[in-house]
């Protein structure tokens, strides 16, 4: 391909930044002597940059529900499936156990005194309270989505991202801070064309992060029905999430997966390239 003394391999490796250090001096000396080769290197680099500029935006596309479902362990043989990638799982599992014990333990104690405190039950009650509110279901409306996220981020002390459920027919109504819990809880409300409402509640609970690892705890969506409100709830990193609505279990699960996927993607924060 090139008439010079520089092998193709070196030319491309140099342009791609993967030339072995010991070849560097020789290649740079050749390039200095042959402007045509330097020009070719520059061309390759600008082609690379243009390809990235063109194709990087694909990484930010919302993940479809069917792929998120496919990213969950298949039902058959889930015993071994769960053990796959166990190192990556360990941290999350620890939290499930820790927060699980925290919540459920506290729930039992307080329930004896007649106060509903399990996360799912609280979420369902909060959902019923605000979803039925025609005038003021949220404190901050969707038109101020950005300041909503900033405000909740500050109040909860955790980066808050607002999932986009438009692809599933639910648009953001707005959000609020739910008072009255031991830990502040952020709430986002969504609504579809039939005026059905969904709420996503997020609570940070860092109390039990130091819990010992058990290695045998499921990382999973949990489902509960409280007073006719379906709730999917789960733990991820140091937050508890609850998605509530009067939808059937399958619909709610699909949405829960999309929410989970978007939050995971936001967490992974697809690296933005500077070149």
């Amino acid at each position, binding site marked *: 391909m090139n008439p010079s003394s520089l092998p*193709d391999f070196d030319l491309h490796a140099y342009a*791609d930044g993967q030339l072995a250090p010991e070849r560097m001096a020789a290649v740079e000396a050749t390039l200095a002597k042959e402007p045509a080769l330097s020009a070719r290197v520059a061309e390759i680099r600008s082609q690379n940059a243009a*390809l990235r500029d063109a194709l990087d935006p*694909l990484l930010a596309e919302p993940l479809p529900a069917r792929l998120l479902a496919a*990213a*969950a362990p*298949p039902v058959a043989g889930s015993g071994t499936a769960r053990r796959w990638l166990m190192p990556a799982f360990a941290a999350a599992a620890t939290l499930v156990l820790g927060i699980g014990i925290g919540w459920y333990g506290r729930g039992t104690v307080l329930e004896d005194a007649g106060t509903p405190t399990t996360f799912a039950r609280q979420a369902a009650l909060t959902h019923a309270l605000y979803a039925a509110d025609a005038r003021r279901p949220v404190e901050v409306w969707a038109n101020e989505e950005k300041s909503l996220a900033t405000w909740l981020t500050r109040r909860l002390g955790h980066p808050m991202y607002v999932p986009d459920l438009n692809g599933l027919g639910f648009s953001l109504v707005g959000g609020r801070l739910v008072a009255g819990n031991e830990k502040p809880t952020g709430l986002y409300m969504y609504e579809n064309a039939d005026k059905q409402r969904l709420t996503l509640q997020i609570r940070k609970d860092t109390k039990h992060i130091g819990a010992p690892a058990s290695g045998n705890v499921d990382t999973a969506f949990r489902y509960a029905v409280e007073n006719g409100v379906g709730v999917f709830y789960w733990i991820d990193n140091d937050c508890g999430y609850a998605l509530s609505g009067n939808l059937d279990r399958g619909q709610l699960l699909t949405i829960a997966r999309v929410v989970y996927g978007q939050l*995971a*993607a936001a967490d992974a924060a697809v690296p933005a390239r500077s070149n």
Partner: protein
Amino acid sequence: MSADAALPHPDLVAALPRLRRYARVLTGDATRADDLVQDTLARAWEKRRLWQAGTDLRAWLFTVMHNVHINQLALARRDAANVSLDDEGEGAAWQIPVRANQLERVELMELVQQMGRLPAEQREVLLLAAVEEMRYEEIAALLEIPIGTVMSRLSRARDKLKRLVGEPAPQLKVVKMSPGVSS
């Protein structure tokens, strides 16, 4: 506490955007790309014991996807032998949207459009080297080909793409445009 539904695996979710992009470059079509990713995830769960803990999960998933794609193409060719469907069909369906500001957009659209005219095996190597910035030896291992083949595909892909983009072809877009499709 019983599991009501398994959570999507966080490491797989994190790999999804890149898998989808790779699939998009292989197939040139959003729906077929997601079909391929879905088949790839199913295959990955089936074959999960073959993944070596501690190695790059993305690279392993890319290998799985590459193989799933190759197998599907081989099956399609066998099925299509009687119907006389050839590879021409692939390039014609190629469509990847470009989001960029107005200044860059035309140029990048042209680049991506022309990328679709490269043979699939060159397109694949170009994506992995130029966009994913993988090392040549990783690409060779991933595609199970010698490193020399990686280099010749990469070199040919770059030269051809440069030539195609440089071609004065004002009518190209009109000719390529199928009825009812607006950009």
